[in-house]
């Protein structure tokens, strides 16, 4: 079931082989205006699994997620070193098209951010950026994406109504559908449920579990229970460094390090 990881240089840092992993982070560091946010991170993310990044606020988990999507490009003060590769390709390579990369690595943010257009147009947004396709094909993809995001039944009768009229939970699933429509290899989720009510949260969590048959997911969350419920692997970050990384069951029930246990049990924040 789970890929059997082989233990690398440290017992508490799981490593995956090239065939198992989809995304490889090698000695990656990032600084904002000289202030170091990520320090020498090395981490591989297994394909078709949900990997959770946990850690206290400011530990760098969101920064790492944004680095995978090259969102720091928008910030000219950010500098980095090391490599991040997706299926062996360096995402920071000169010949890497950023827009193409971001299509391959979708991202969902903390607060739902549907565009001020209709539900249909929101999902079609990414498709319209690509090569022209027939309306029929586009309609099919939109239906598929909304179905994958467990939203189709709720919105199929009002596809052309404004997306801003949906509830928060529906908006977040719409944003996921919008991302799925461009068929990414990896989906990054930055605290996707933190702004949602409990029922919407459960729906989004269920959606995340179902989606891993289609793609690789990386989840950043503050919510320990959520990480335990949803993820297959968990990476614990602290102070911009990777502290412990392993199968979720093991990290939560039998962590190697005292610091991990302290954080998970709430003794360290």
């Amino acid at each position, binding site marked *: 079931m789970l890929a059997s990881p082989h233990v690398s240089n440290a017992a508490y840092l799981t490593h995956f082989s090239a065939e198992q992993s989809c995304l490889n982070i090698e000695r990656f560091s990032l600084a904002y205006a000289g202030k170091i946010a990520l320090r020498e991170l090395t981490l591989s993310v297994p394909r078709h699994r949900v990997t959770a990044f946990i850690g206290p606020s400011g530990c760098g988990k969101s920064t790492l997620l944004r680095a995978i999507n090259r969102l720091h490009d928008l910030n000219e003060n950010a500098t980095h070193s090391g490599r991040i590769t997706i299926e062996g390709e360096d995402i920071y390579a000169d010949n890497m098209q950023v827009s193409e990369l971001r299509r391959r690595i*979708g*991202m969902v*943010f903390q607060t739902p951010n549907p565009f001020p257009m209709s539900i249909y147009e929101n999902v079609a947004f990414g498709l319209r950026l690509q090569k022209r396709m027939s309306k029929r094909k586009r309609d099919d993809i939109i239906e598929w994406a909304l179905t994958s995001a467990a939203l189709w039944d709720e919105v199929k009768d009002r596809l052309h109504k*404004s997306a*801003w009229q949906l509830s928060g939970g529906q908006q977040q699933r719409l944003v996921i559908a919008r991302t799925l429509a461009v068929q990414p290899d990896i989906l990054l989720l930055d605290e996707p449920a933190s702004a949602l009510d409990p029922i919407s949260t459960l729906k989004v969590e269920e959606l995340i579990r179902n989606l891993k048959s289609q793609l690789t997911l990386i989840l950043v969350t503050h919510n320990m229970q959520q990480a335990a419920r949803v993820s297959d692997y968990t990476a614990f970050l602290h102070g911009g460094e990777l502290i412990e990384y392993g199968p979720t069951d093991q990290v939560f029930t039998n962590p190697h390090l005292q610091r991990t246990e302290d954080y998970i049990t709430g003794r360290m924040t």
Partner: protein
Amino acid sequence: MSRLWPWLCAASVALSLLMLAALLTLLLTRGLGHFWPATLESVTLDSGEIIAGEAVREAPLPHRDGEERLYFTGNRDLDSHRWRWVAIDRIAERSTPRALVRLERSPWGDFIGYLSAFESGSDHLEGDAAWHALTTALAHTTFERSNATLVLQSATGETLRQPLNEIYRAHRPNAMAWWEKIRYWFQGVWQFLSEGPRAANTGGGVWPAIFGTVLMVMVMSVIVMPFGVLAAIYLNEIAHQGRLTRLVRIGVRNLAGVPSIVYGVFGLGVFVYGIGSSLDAWFFSDSLPSPTFGTGGLLWASLTLALLTLPVVIVATEEGLARIPDAQREGAVALGATRLEMLTRVVLPMAAPAMLTAMILAVARAAGEVAPLMLVGVAKLAPQMPVDGEFPYLHVERKFMHLGYHLFDTAYHGEDMQAALPLVYATALLLVVIVLVLNLTAILLRHYLRHQRGQSC
């Protein structure tokens, strides 16, 4: 004190509203009252002299007790003055004869008196028949009635032969029923809006000025909006947010406070004398020394006002751009949009209401601006409209008329201040209404855009 301050705030609001209401009431009553067919009086003084005219207002006598009344008597061709102050205690008798006629004509202004006869070729009509012939003839064009003549008699008994083609309108207010007066009022308002000025802007309509104002504002918007929006995008979306950008931003904001006449001087020096003269030398040398672009005109006026309103547009648009959450930008970028696609597909549509707000502010500022226009292209009386059937249809080098300047000119440069005053009020009212209509259009458009997207605010 803590009890008092809400009242102070409320009082300030009340005072502002009161002033606004007073302004609008003044403009409405004075401006629109001008077109109402006022009752004409025939006044016999105790000296036996008879005058006929419209009572305008009363004032205390300067040298003794009592009041005097101002009458508009017209007939400038007969007695050279159109106004007459009459001490009230000198009036022996006042009446309102139904036969008193008021003719609007050019030259010489209004005639007030009696219609004796209507002569056309061999026809000679008198009494009511003459009046009927006159009203029928006025429905035709000036050309068709060029051979008819009116025999008129003033209240003092002088006789006058008046060619019919110099007459615009005629009415007998004392003989009119209220619905006829209302119809006459609407006709007057319509003629004011649709006709050109006459008698050196003291009479007639303001259509060329309305047209010039609206056209100038439109040309200005077409110029200023792209520039302003692009500049705002650069400042907010592209430029490195450092000290230099902050400095530029402060500079732009302060440009909005530069007195408008300064922009006029700039327009005159750079656009008219600089660029305009060069254009003339290169492309219109055949018609020199009479200038084509080397003199004030619609284009230079629009450019000058575009410059004047540019800071307003930049600031308002930038505020709109700054209000768009970064999550929207990141959402677009995360779907594989390039920076340009993010701007054109997400940011600019979301900023459209702010851009309309910017346009509203620019239009409101530009439509009311007079001082710079006097330097760069507005005319007291433009011989040609800036748009006509002649290629290339829009003549941006022509001088044009403008309501604000027309107002100024009517109020101060006319030969008869008293006669022009109601027109000044009417023109001022019109200017307010035009700015209101332009703004309302933009506000409705903005509301529509927001509603379409389901935005609540």
